[in-house]
C-alpha cells in the first residue's frame, strides 16, 4: 500500500473529527492543499514531507482530543434548515 495515500486518508479521517466547524473545515482544506503542494516530490524530499505529514497527523489527533474536551457552540453553517 502506498504510504502517502494511507497518510492522506488518515489525515482526512482525523480532520473530519475536529469539533469546531471552522477548524474542521480548515483542517480538511489544509490536508488537501498540502498534498497538492507536495505532489511532485520524489526521493529524499518525499520522505521528509511524509515524516512532516506524520507529525501533523499526531498534532491533529491531539487537537481533536482537546477540541472534544472543550466543545464550542455549533456554527450556523451546521444547522442547515
Amino acid at each position, binding site marked *: *500500500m502506498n504510504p502517502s*495515500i*494511507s497518510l*492522506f*486518508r488518515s489525515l*482526512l479521517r482525523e480532520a473530519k473529527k475536529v469539533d469546531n466547524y471552522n477548524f474542521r473545515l480548515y483542517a480538511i482544506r489544509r490536508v488537501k492543499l498540502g*498534498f*497538492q503542494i507536495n505532489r511532485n516530490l520524489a526521493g529524499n524530499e518525499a520522505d521528509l514531507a511524509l515524516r512532516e505529514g506524520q507529525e501533523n497527523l499526531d498534532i491533529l489527533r491531539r487537537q481533536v482530543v482537546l477540541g472534544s474536551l472543550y466543545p464550542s457552540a455549533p456554527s450556523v453553517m451546521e444547522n442547515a434548515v
Partner: protein
Amino acid sequence: MFSSAARTIVSRAAASAASRGAVANRLNVQPSMMAVRFASTFLNPAEVQERIITVVKNFDKCDPAKVSSDSKFVDDLGLDSLDSVEVVMAIEDEFAIEIPDAEADRIASIGDAVEYIAAHPMAK
C-alpha cells in the same frame, strides 16, 4: 365469584403488559422495533448503484455527464489517486460506514464500490 376470577385474570394480563412496556421503555425502543434492529440488512444493488452515481456526480472534480455505472475513477473520470480517496470517503459518508484502508485501495471504479457496499451488512 366467576366475575371476580375474570377480573383477576384481566388485571394480571394488564400487569404483565405494563411490565413489558417498562422493559421497552428502559431500553428506549418500541417493542416492535426490537426485532428489526438486529436484522442484517443488505441494500438493494440497484439502489446502491443509483446513490453511488449521485455521490460521484456531486463530486466537484468530475464531469457529471461522464459518470456512468461502469466508470473507472482514474481512467474514465480523470481523477488522480488523491481524488479517488476523497470519492471513496464521500461514499463512506453516504452509507454511514468506514471502509478499511486495504479494501478502500481496491475500490477503483463505480462497479467496485457498488459490489462492496451491496455486500456490506452495515451499510445504510
